[in-house]
């Protein structure tokens, strides 16, 4: 596939060009609703990164962007890990949702004395519940051949129903709102404001970004080590390329399918540490907010590589936060930002050859004679 192209073109230039194309088409869409694309971009970038015009701290925008980025890193890594074993985990939404239930259960079950312990326990609970929610589709795929795309989608719906039931029933706090009681104060995770404070630096006090971002970066490094440095990752990649080859090598398809999906579910689940434990500090309805699906786009755009996933997650973080600003500042409907996201997904995911094939021709022509 990338035989004819240098690595920097394959991994750098092509994504950038497809992105540019997506933005160009988005610009036309913006024009069509009578807005100025330049102004839209300015509002989005200022809103998502840093807005010197507003009086409040410059870190408000980035604090929100990083919060969303954290979610997308987790869900993007989840899709990427499964994808290396050629499993398409569409169930990030449900896995993250159920992980939220797990986090809420352990947070409410004990009066945790310190945030560090709460972080460890919350992380473990999120991973365990996310993995458990992925386990059944994984087993059905490996043993019965039930297509994982179908089963994970169904499990998203089941998860939504379960969470809805819990929040108006057993886990509901006093009052009429569908939400759980708040977690103990001591269990609250450090926000970016707190963390910057440790080093005497300033950060917006109200931004939701928290220590989970660090967890996400650690997870990305962990996934990189797993996929490219361990024998398990080697087996997953072999299985992903050819199941027949895997069986020939004595690798059990059942084992790899289960492990890949459990890891994927655990990674999706980690998102709950950010949203439920770090930000809301209680379980709310719809706390996943589509991040599970955006993870698919993130993994696709990031080529299932952790570095790519982190970068793509940041891009989608900017879009999400910038989109909110757009609505606030210019009254552009939030659906507009969904259109732009869809364009990016379409261009990076399925229209990549628009850019790739002409580039390959250019490079073959240029490279003729130089290298064979």
């Amino acid at each position, binding site marked *: 596939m990338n*035989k*004819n192209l240098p690595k920097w073109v394959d991994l750098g230039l092509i994504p950038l060009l497809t992105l540019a194309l997506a933005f160009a088409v988005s610009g036309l869409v913006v024009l069509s609703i009578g807005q100025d694309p330049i102004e839209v971009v300015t509002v989005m970038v200022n809103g998502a990164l840093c807005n010197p015009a507003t009086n409040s701290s410059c870190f408000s925008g980035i604090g929100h962007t990083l919060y969303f980025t954290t979610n997308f890193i987790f869900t993007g890594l989840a899709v990427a890990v499964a994808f290396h074993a050629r499993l398409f985990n569409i169930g990030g939404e449900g896995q993250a949702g159920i992980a939220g239930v797990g986090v809420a259960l352990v947070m409410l079950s004990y009066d945790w004395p310190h945030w560090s312990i709460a972080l460890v326990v919350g992380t473990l609970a999120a991973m365990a519940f996310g993995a458990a929610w992925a386990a059944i589709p994984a087993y059905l795929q490996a043993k019965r051949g039930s297509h994982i795309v179908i089963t994970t989608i169904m499990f998203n719906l089941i998860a939504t129903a379960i969470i809805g039931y819990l929040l108006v029933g057993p886990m509901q706090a006093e009052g009429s709102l569908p939400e759980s009681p708040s977690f103990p104060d001591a269990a609250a995770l450090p926000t970016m404001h707190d963390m910057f404070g440790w080093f005497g630096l300033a950060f917006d006090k109200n931004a939701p970004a928290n220590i989970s971002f660090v967890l996400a970066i650690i997870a990305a490094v962990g996934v990189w*080590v797993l996929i490219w*440095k*361990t*024998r398990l990752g*080697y*087996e997953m*990649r*072999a299985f992903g*390329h*050819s199941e*027949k*080859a895997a*069986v*020939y*090598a*004595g*690798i*059990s398809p059942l084992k790899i399918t289960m492990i890949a999906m459990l890891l994927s579910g655990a990674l999706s689940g980690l998102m709950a540490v950010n949203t439920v434990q770090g930000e809301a500090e209680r379980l709310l309805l719809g706390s996943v907010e589509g991040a599970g699906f955006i993870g698919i786009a993130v993994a696709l755009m990031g080529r299932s590589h952790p570095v790519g996933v982190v970068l793509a997650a940041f891009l989608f973080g900017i879009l999400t936060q910038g989109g909110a600003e757009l609505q606030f500042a210019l009254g552009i409907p939030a659906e507009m930002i969904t259109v732009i996201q869809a364009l990016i997904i379409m261009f990076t995911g399925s229209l990549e050859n628009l850019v790739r094939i002409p580039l*390959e021709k250019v490079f*073959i022509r240029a*490279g*003729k004679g130089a290298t*064979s």
Partner: protein
Amino acid sequence: MSETTTNAGRLDAVAPAIELNGISKAFGPVQANKDISMTVAKGAIHGIVGENGAGKSTLMSILYGFYKADSGSIKIDGVPTTINDSHDAIAAGIGMVHQHFMLVDNFTVLENVVLGAEEGATLGPSLRKARKELKRLADEYELDVNPDALIEDISVGFQQRVEILKALYRQAEILILDEPTGVLTPDEADHLFRILRNLKEQGKTIVIITHKLREIMDVTDSVSVMRRGEMTKTIATSTTSPEDLAEAMVGRRVLLEVDKKPAEVGETVMQIKGLSVTDVHGVKRLKDVSFELKRGEILGIAGVAGNGQSELLEVISGIGAATSGEILMNGEAIDISPKANAGMRRERGISHVPEDRHQRGLVMPFMTWENTAFGYHNEPKYSGKFGLANQKYMKQDAREKMERFDVRPPIPQLVASHFSGGNQQKIVLAREIEHNPDVLLIGQPTRGVDIGAIEFIHQQIVNLRDAGKAILLVSVELDEIQALSDRILVMFDGVIQGERLPENTNEGELGLLMAGVDPEANS
């Protein structure tokens, strides 16, 4: 390159059926065809030989309109012709029988013949016309096939006839056959050649692409040799020999015979007893197969593809499970239930060079150093600190294996798909042989491998035998079985149809066994 006319003693006044002039075609940086000129006389059988990747198929695909040449021209019957797609080719009277048949399995023979050549809105008239035409063709060319049989119910030999009928039904005057005998028994191949000679008698022109030099000698009037995209030689078949052709293909003298001493057979390593396999559809693939394998021998399993050889390899290598029977390794039973896996076999000293190198033997996007440990990757020598893989050792190990097995280029970082078929096979062989197994299972060791590499691979197999290892060789190439084996088993329909010693048998007898006939039963 000069144009060589291979007019097999015919009148010069008749325009040649095919005339290619200066055909060139590049795929990216790869020049698949370089300035190729070729002339095929009307009513001749013309062979094209060459190694994999020499450009034979590209050339024929240009003639059939699958690819468009970058430069050059084509004349059919002396008329300049532009062929942009297969419709143009058919209109010009060219028919092609592909290596992998293009038939609809759940259609009848008749429906397949008509497919794409239907006339009118309803099928009835076309089918009636085709039925009449098929009968005529069958009488004329020994091309009998039951027009109402479903494709999935007839043998590959008959399926191939359907492909030929399809072409003839479309009024083909020129027939191109790509590796036509790859899936046929020797008997079926003989029948095919009779058909081709009949067609020739009727003035049809035939181009046959093959890598089997013996077939070229048997059936063609003239032959062209291709090497690295160029046509190196075109010659009348009667004035050449297999050795000369091989040399022209490879560019150096090639040993076609395998150089080996008599086997020094030792004690039995593996016993197969009453092995049976029933697949998921309830079809018996392997029926009560029993044999023994001894140290220091090469046991060859001959047979047409699809007669249970693959299942036999899968069960012994641990990829598939047996329904019943047992396998003893050094007198000890091994687990052949679905719970076992290929890794357990490797631990018992059974290594496996699989038939399908692309899907099984190698992970194509993996680098060579990842592939040379594949299947053995859990061995302690490959594990490093903190449970991570010891990539430094894996690379060094790969480099050593590549050097010992003459893999070119010897670069461990290269991805498997970058290598030629022969070098890919050497990578698999290096991995399995260097593991020093007691038993080596080899399926189709030289499928898709160039002649130069075949010589090397055969020598490695013989060396392993001489080192006292037991080798089970499965191949659909009868020549290969005869050249390498110390003992031959023939499989037909999941059964061992007979056992022969290579020195006491011949191709005719083996061919009958491969077709399910026991010559001794009748005599």
